[in-house]
């Protein structure tokens, strides 16, 4: 037996071969753990500061923001948030963003699932070239496609609709989804497919009833990524919309008027754009680390 747990056995081994006593070693370990906790705490503190400042400002009146420097709100106010929730032109921005993001997630996952299955299970003519070409789309800068997109969607009458943005975001989301899903699918043993066919399952039946439930955590991670990249992208969303489907990020720019910038409302709107992300990340937190490695480690 070569199994040496990090317990007594390991301790015994260390005592035999090492000059430092167990007490010294424990002390050293505790010190290094403390050091890493302090460093991590410092990083998290610095990372949170800008976000804290945004929240801080969103709870202040404009006169307080522009007045003296205060580290926390002196006269706590929720007016900035109420202004957003009471004005349709504001909260519709969130609705618009949500709509095209969910449309994009639905379309992408529907076409990416079968494609990823094909890449993970079969060899076919041109499969490697196709896969590489897909990856290049992931890397295509949206700025390159701005002009043609604008003209294409304008000419087919899709300009300023949610579906236009949802389709445009497929450009980078479909390749990403296929890349992640392929990794998860390849980790499912092939014997399962074969057994299902021998048992007389048809392909669609097998795929929906057996295969998809097996990789559902992979699908969850994929959906998280689709949400994330569609939610944060604004260059395409801005170009393809005018009024009806404008994303919240664009509506936020309206806070600058002739009388200056309405900092409080801008900050409150900013805070509200972070909330959906936090909710999504909370639900998939246990799968995130694996998904960030794109299922490949």
């Amino acid at each position, binding site marked *: 037996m070569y199994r040496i747990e*990090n317990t007594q056995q*390991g301790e015994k081994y*260390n005592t035999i*071969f090492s000059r430092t006593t167990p007490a010294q070693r424990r002390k050293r370990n505790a010190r290094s753990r403390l050091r890493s*906790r302090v460093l*991590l705490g410092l990083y998290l503190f610095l*990372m*949170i*500061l*800008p*976000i804290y400042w*945004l929240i801080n*400002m969103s709870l202040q009146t404009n006169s307080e*923001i522009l007045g003296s*420097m205060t580290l926390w709100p002196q006269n706590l106010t929720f007016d900035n948030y109420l202004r957003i929730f009471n004005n349709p032109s504001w909260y519709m921005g969130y609705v618009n963003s949500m709509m095209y993001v969910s449309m994009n997630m639905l379309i992408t996952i*529907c*076409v990416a699932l*079968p*494609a990823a299955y*094909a890449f993970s*299970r*079969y*060899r*076919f003519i041109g499969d490697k070239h196709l*896969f*590489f070409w*897909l990856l290049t789309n992931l*890397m*295509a*800068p*949206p700025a*390159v*496609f701005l*002009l*043609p997109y*604008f*003209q*294409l969607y304008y000419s087919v009458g899709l300009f300023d609709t949610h579906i236009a943005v949802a*389709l445009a975001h*497929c*450009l980078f989301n*479909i390749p990403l989804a296929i890349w992640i899903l392929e990794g998860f699918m390849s980790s499912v043993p092939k014997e399962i497919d074969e057994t299902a066919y021998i048992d007389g399952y048809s392909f669609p039946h097998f795929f929906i009833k057996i295969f998809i439930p097996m990789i559902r955590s992979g699908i969850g991670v994929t959906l998280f990524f689709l949400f994330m990249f569609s939610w*944060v992208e*604004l260059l395409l969303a801005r170009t393809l919309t005018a009024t009806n489907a404008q994303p919240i*990020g664009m509506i*936020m*720019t309206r806070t600058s008027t002739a009388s200056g910038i309405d900092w409080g409302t801008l900050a409150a709107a*900013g805070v509200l*754009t*972070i909330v959906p*992300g936090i909710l*999504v*990340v909370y639900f998939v*937190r*246990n799968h995130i*680390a694996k998904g*960030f*490695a794109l299922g*490949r*480690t």
Partner: protein
Amino acid sequence: MNNKVQNNRAWLLVLPMLVLVAFSAIIPLMTVVNYSVQDVLGPNARFFTGTEWFESILNDSALRAAFARQILFSLTILAIQVPLGIGIALIMPKRGWQASAVLILITLPLLIPWNVVGSIWQIFTRGDIGLMGWGLRELGIHYNITRNAGDAWATIILMDVWHWTPLVAMLCYSGLRSIPEAYYQAARIDRASKWAVFRYIQLPKLTNVLVIAVLLRFMHSFMIYAEPFVLTGGGPGSSTTFLSQSLATMAIGQQDLGPSAAFSIIYFLVILLVSWVFYTTIMHMQKDKNPHGGA
């Protein structure tokens, strides 16, 4: 188990994806190619110009400067974010509620829309109402991102580090989590130093995810647009105007179809070249590790 079955009917499974991606990638790309060799004066007035636009773009000193700036920016943030990300991944807690709390906190910057990131930093760094601007002023440091190009650069790099280091950290964290505990125990028995553990166990296991991290970071840094646009508007002067912004100004702002199309193609080819180099590197590394596998 790894050998795949030859089956050309698999194309049927790929077809819906292909139709969609063709609609969102190939048709627009064809339009761009079309414009890049034409002079468009109106709906029915077009002239074939050959490579004229390409020549004028390649000779444009402002664009060359933007390109050099872009390369410098990408290399700088990679040099900062990769070591920092590895460092954070190493000190992140391994299990328990702390691990998931840190994970959620660390993902926060990634989930903020890119122009909101710009707004946050604009607020944060302003001398009159921002914490950082105010703090620096109290310390007696002259800091102004709208006047001083150096300050603007430093702020944009700081903002990008804040925004994207979490991605590198999470990739590395998941890479570290996949190292079996037995490796560490073997190292402990050999009395390996911390550095040796990092150099001979952790780093080799991380190469795979690091290639993905560097690839994603490089590509995204090339596409950076909304953050500097909101923060500095590309100024002062053109000191923080990167490639995407030059392109967007040219295409949408000035409606220069031909030159901006030619610019797009050159831009895309650069990205394609880099991604091809990375892609073949990844595939080679996977082949070395697993001789029977492959892409």
